[in-house]
């Protein structure tokens, strides 16, 4: 919808941002897993999407899907830039299907896959992953809880993630 005056355009932008920001942010966060980057990409998403939404009179019921698509494209673009610099990082590959956030079943399956993979680790590996990544403890705190040295924790988490990567990779075959 294009508005004649800037005042109503500002209101329209404000309404769009406030009414859609949470699911958009959640999707982005899901992929980048940190607030700083998620906030940054959320902002860029609206800056890129709004001119198109207004110019093409995108109806309200399609706006969310469009915003999510733009968000995913921005993440892909950023990652491709890195790839062009000679890396093989692939954020897309780690993400669930785009439909995941629309479909709780998909998300549930995704979650079960990760949990099943975690269960295949040995007790210590699972604990170190749980403490460091799921619970967010520091290396020092994890070392204290597990009664290990910090260097041991770093080695353990590295090996645990290697094993988990292998299990997930094999599971997707």
């Amino acid at each position, binding site marked *: 919808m294009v508005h004649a005056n*800037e005042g109503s355009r*500002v209101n329209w*932008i*404000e309404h769009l*941002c*406030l009414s859609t*920001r*949470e699911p958009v*942010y*959640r999707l982005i*966060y*899901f992929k*980048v*897993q*940190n*607030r*700083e*980057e*998620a*906030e940054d990409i959320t*902002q860029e998403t*609206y*800056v890129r999407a*709004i*001119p198109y939404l207004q110019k093409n009179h995108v109806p309200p019921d399609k706006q969310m899907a469009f915003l999510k698509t733009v968000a995913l494209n921005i993440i892909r673009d950023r990652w491709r830039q*890195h790839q062009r*610099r000679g*890396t093989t*990082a*692939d954020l897309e590959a*780690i993400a669930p299907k785009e439909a995941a956030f629309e479909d709780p079943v998909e998300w549930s399956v995704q*979650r079960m896959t*990760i*949990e099943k993979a*975690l*269960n295949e680790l040995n*007790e210590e590996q*699972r*604990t170190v*992953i*749980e403490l*460091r*990544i*799921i619970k*967010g403890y*520091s*290396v020092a*705190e994890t070392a*204290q*809880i597990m*009664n290990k040295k910090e260097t041991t924790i*770093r*080695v353990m*988490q*590295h090996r645990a*993630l*290697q094993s*988990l*990567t292998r299990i*997930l990779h094999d599971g997707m075959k």
Partner: protein
Amino acid sequence: MHDNERRLSDYIDQLNAEKKPKDHEHLGADPELQKLFHTARLVRSLREPAMPERDFPAKLVRAVTDQLVQTKQKKKKRAWMASIVGIAAVLALSLLMHIVSLFDQPNIVKAMEKAFQDVTAYHGFLEIVETNAQGKTTTQAKLEIWADKHGRYYIRELEGTNKGLITVNNGRTKWQIRPSEKQVHRFPAFPDPYRFAFELGTEIKGIKQAISTNIIREEKTGNRPSWIVEVTPQGGEPYRIWIDKETRLPLQKQYAMHHGIQYKLTYTKIEWNDVIPEKLLAYHVPKGFQEVSQNPEQIVTSIDEAKESVGFLPDTVSQIPPGYVQDRIAIIPDKKLVKLYYRALDKEIVIIQGKAIGKWKLAPTAMVGKIHHQTAEIQSPVVEESGVLGAGGPYAGLTDLHSIRWRQNGFEYAVIGHASLGDLIAFTKELTNGAFEMPTHKDPFPFKPKVEVPVDLEREKNDQKKRRCWKFALEIGSFVCGSSICQPANVPWRHYWRLPDSL
């Protein structure tokens, strides 16, 4: 390989700090390491996302609007004369600065936190005013308040139904001097479910944890220029709070109207002190008054004295976790329990121990850890008071209160406190020689519902509103003879405005 281990660890640390990892900006890692980053993010997606800062919606709208709308405005400005552009720029800058200052909410919250960090104690006069739906205002109470960062306070009701009532918590004991009854009632100092309304530290904490805060305008409160901030808390109705522009601290709070009644609490005068005068915190029974003890605890001077009273030598921590000091030792003679109190600046932890009696039973909502292959009950927050928790005090339902309870060698132990679960774990590990294990992610909750119970969400919502209303009435109820509209049906009237005798 060693370098990769460190980079992976740094990467996880940056995600945990909610910062953009350097490896997202400068990707120089080998493909294998990138795969591990990828797996780390995947595992991390099992967590709830960290939602944006409180000011994010306002920032987002401002940033997007600035980028999309300003472009057009700039084109219009090209035609203006340079001098006019200059003036306009100055005006626009002033306006922008004004808007930024108005909407710079995290700074307000951070400024409040920072300002309160410098406050060690304060002395104020609080006025509680009730307004009904017709706009008629009634002063419910005027209180003199002394409070400090250690959680100690002295409250005297200067005007109101309970004029002369004095409530004090000096960290060791809590008491209430009731002139009308010529009695002094003593209560345990911890936990302290009935503190006082508009406690500054609690207010700032509540604002920090709120879902949203919005500065709506500026106004003078008692000749003090203030910001009016609308706060939407995690639970309950939005309320307004007036922040002093000079001191950056709350001055006034206005609750939403409930059933035609609205409360406003105002510090008509407040000053900052280093300490609460000792004489106010010294327990005494005025001449002609009778002491009524509601406190089952008895302070003892040493572990040996405790042993003499309860018949066993209590375990103590081999090393007190950093930041804490041992505060006091108490016993509950009739229950044969020992309570060891540890205190940090604004935190308190109690170790309760006694002989294991009856069958070991876990609270249904608890997480389950392990100690020497035995289960350990972890409640965060405390919902049920089983075993020694039940005999130790009225803990259930208090927010920010966590506990770990277990049995070992014929004794039952509980570590409970207003502190992080991490602190409780540190104490528990000290008591169990490091044997305590947190639950694994597989099944941290011991019980699953067997039968699904239909819930009428609308009814539940309404019930919660009523409970919130009651909670608020209790919150200020220690000092205000509340309106009957909020009085819970099962609480005797006198308990409504006095500390319950059964605390």
